[in-house]
């Protein structure tokens, strides 16, 4: 019997977090390299299981208990521990999200195992599986392997794999519901109603298109044209740090080392120089278009399309062209 890889996908209030497709892609790649079998699990949201089963996985487990809703780290850890103890896979993969960070240390410790976290890739060399992690703020990478027994836990960084590259299955995989028992007293916190701090808080990590502005936008009122472009493209507005520090956009729109890390399909950087602190927050984006009048701006080293010019000359006609293209198609 070959070993198994289990991808635990993430759901929020019944909806799958799109970063889960990245973890499936990772799982498929590791399965291909090692010859192991790939399975997936959804915790506390059986309704989302069929969507997962459409991908190329051998089987999907829907782990259920009334106590899994609302989310608590104790419940998730207890449920997964019970499930994993009955049929331990070799390797358990999860996306490195806030929620996973909340419960996976507890889960791994409860099982006497360890987690290699925030990995950016993997290698399979001479029969050994190595996970690549960043050190020194991304200047160096280290390959880490497990020296303990299975099951092994690993989490992958947002953007390390391509969610759209997750292979579809030839037919839907079987879905097995697994009911778990979470005893009284296991759950120690009592979550209150989920709320968002700011009124129009946005989760940029879920955006497919982002239009970001930097100092080149010059004045707060000019952000309006960036917003119009974002709207025309069906995307979200974001900014580099100085814009948020000046209060021109709220902090939840900040991208970078002290803001959010995103990996959308399209990232449009307007008037952003490309300081390393900003780059680390968006370098995983699929396509990067940068507009800047300084031809030596560091962002051009990263951008897929470099537009050297004045953004005030370029953006308004661009908005029109986008609208025309959308109307035509």
């Amino acid at each position, binding site marked *: 019997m070959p070993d198994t890889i289990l991808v635990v996908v993430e759901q929020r209030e019944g909806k799958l977090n799109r970063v889960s497709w990245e973890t499936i892609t990772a799982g498929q790649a590791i399965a291909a390299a090692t010859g192991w079998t790939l399975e997936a699990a959804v915790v506390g949201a059986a309704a989302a299981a069929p969507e997962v089963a459409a991908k190329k996985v051998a089987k999907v487990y829907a782990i259920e208990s009334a106590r899994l809703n609302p989310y608590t780290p104790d419940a998730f850890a207890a449920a997964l521990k019970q499930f994993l103890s009955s049929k331990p896979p070799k390797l358990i993969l999860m996306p490195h999200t806030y929620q996973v960070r909340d419960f996976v240390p507890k889960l791994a410790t409860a099982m006497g195992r360890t987690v290699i976290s925030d990995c950016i890739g993997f290698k399979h060399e001479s029969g050994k599986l190595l996970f690549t992690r960043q050190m*020194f*703020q991304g*200047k*160096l990478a280290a390959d880490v392997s497990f020296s303990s027994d299975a099951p092994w836990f690993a989490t992958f960084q947002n953007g390390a794999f391509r969610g759209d590259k997750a292979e579809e299955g030839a037919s839907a995989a079987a879905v097995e519901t697994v009911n778990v028992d979470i005893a009284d007293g296991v759950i120690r916190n009592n979550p209150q109603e989920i709320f968002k701090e700011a009124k129009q808080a946005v989760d940029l990590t879920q955006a497919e298109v982002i239009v970001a502005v930097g100092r080149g936008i010059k004045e707060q009122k000019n952000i309006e044209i960036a917003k119009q472009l974002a709207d025309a493209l069906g995307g979200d507005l974001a900014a580099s740090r100085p814009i948020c*520090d*000046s209060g021109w956009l709220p*902090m939840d729109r900040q991208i970078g*080392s*002290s803001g959010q890390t995103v990996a959308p399909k399209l990232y449009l950087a307007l008037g952003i120089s490309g*300081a*390393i*602190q900003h780059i*680390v927050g968006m370098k995983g984006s699929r396509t990067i278009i940068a507009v800047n009048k300084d031809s030596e701006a*560091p962002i051009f080293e990263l951008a897929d399309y470099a537009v050297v010019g004045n953004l005030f000359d370029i953006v308004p006609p661009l908005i029109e062209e986008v609208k025309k293209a959308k109307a035509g198609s």
Partner: protein
Amino acid sequence: MITFRKPIEGVERPQMPADVVIVGGGPAGMACALRLAQLIDEHNNAHPDAQLSKENIYVLEKAREVGQHCLSGALLDPRAIAELLPDFKKDAPLDAEVTKEAVYFFTEKSKFKFPITPPFLRDHGNYVISLNKFVKWMGSKVEQAGVTIFTGFAGSELLYDGDRVNGVRTDDKGVDKEGHQKSNFEPGYDLQAKVVILAEGPRGSLTKQLVQKFDLAKNANPQTYGVGVKELWEVPAGRIAAGEVIYTMGWPLTTREYGGAWIYGSPGHGTTDNIVSLGFVTGLDYADPRLDPQRVLQQFKKHPFVAKLLEGGKMIRYGAKSMPYGGWWAIPPVAGDGWMLIGDTAGFLNSARLKGIHLAIKSGMLAAETAFHALMKNDSSAATLGDFQKTVDSSWIKEELWKYRNLHQGFEHGMLAGMFHTGLQMITGGRGLRNRYTGVAGYERMKKLSQLPADGGAEAHLLGPAKGDGKLTFDKLTDLYHSGTKHEEDQPAHLVIHDTNVCNERCVKEYGSPCQNFCPANVYEMVDDSSQPNGKRISLNPSNCVHCKTCDIQDPYQIITWVPPEGGGGPNYDGM
């Protein structure tokens, strides 16, 4: 409107009694804690019926982890650690024993090696270390010895009972940018201590408060400083040997500036690469306010000798820290009613040998001995603690520093005069032309823009921000990223500017806002503001701070007071 950090008023603070509180977990603070624990253990073994407790001895360390804010070249003279822990060689993290040293004088394209290494720069018997790793190791010894280290806690104020220091107040946590309490607000603790020992490193903030309150510096020379800007590099094998030590003087500085560079080789991490610690120390007494110490380091790396050393290598860490150059005459009284000063905060650094770690450790040990006697006598008045002053005076600390007591002051009129005075001092046991050379605080030597050539003259290549090529040289923001510095964003600004009108109305014109240049971390920025008389306004990025204290030292109006931000924040000097 910037809100500056200050202790919250009108809140009840938890009171905690303590025997000894050591503020600062660097080599001095750790040595003090360890020595004190050793003395108490010795006493307890000899007096089983009259035991002293170690439970009420605390080290406060503002970093999240021990050693995280420690940065130095560094070369360790093992003299002091050998006294503290005779078998230190068994497990101390010593990167390499010094195998060879060389001193060069650089010109822009060339170099001249000193045929004889000056005695004060000879390093045989010394070790290349990472101060961060060394202090982590000392910290583990301190905890094994039973002393508690509170990481993530800064000393924000001294507590007084009249003229007696009787404790330390720690930082308020959970205060937002406007100075209001957040939902996770926790007032600082009032640690009521019998003895408070300040080991804050160069330009300590509590030390500054203490010196000002009691006018302690009135009979001392003003303390003068340099700022060391450091990068850690990984270079291919064969370029430099582990244990190889290089010092340089001259280019990129001119004869008017004080400073120089170090390059130390360490073994790599089990690969064929070597780790190179390199940095440039610029004396904080230069004349042109546009001078940028981080740029000076980048210029230095462009020298063919250095560029060749670093070619194909990778910069892995960056940091900066000030260091006290004033020498013996700039050390204030080091003991008083309820308090003692140790390490760099007192000024125990040998600026000729460019070494202070051994002096920090020794001063910590001597202070521990005095603190132990104070606990035994239950008397920590100036009379008892004053013993520390006496033991320092009769120890090898004074013996060593006395020889170089006039060295830095001799350079006040440039390099040639400095070398003349140094030469003279070397043959007169440090005396030179007179027993005590006076000094001037470095910021007083900063000239106004109107007194300097508009294009910067001979110093032009040192002025303004470095652009960097991204491979050998870097702009400040890129370098800063590699310091790993991080702070809680939503907190008041900890760079307290007492009158921002001076920044916006006077400094812009008189000095051209030098804070943008002397800060190695891009904390200070003048942004456009049409409502201001000069069209510019001071803006702060406090979360970029690397806790070097250069701003507190070098601001020409002396209106910046650096206070510790919320504990836990700051640089991450792994391996530095």
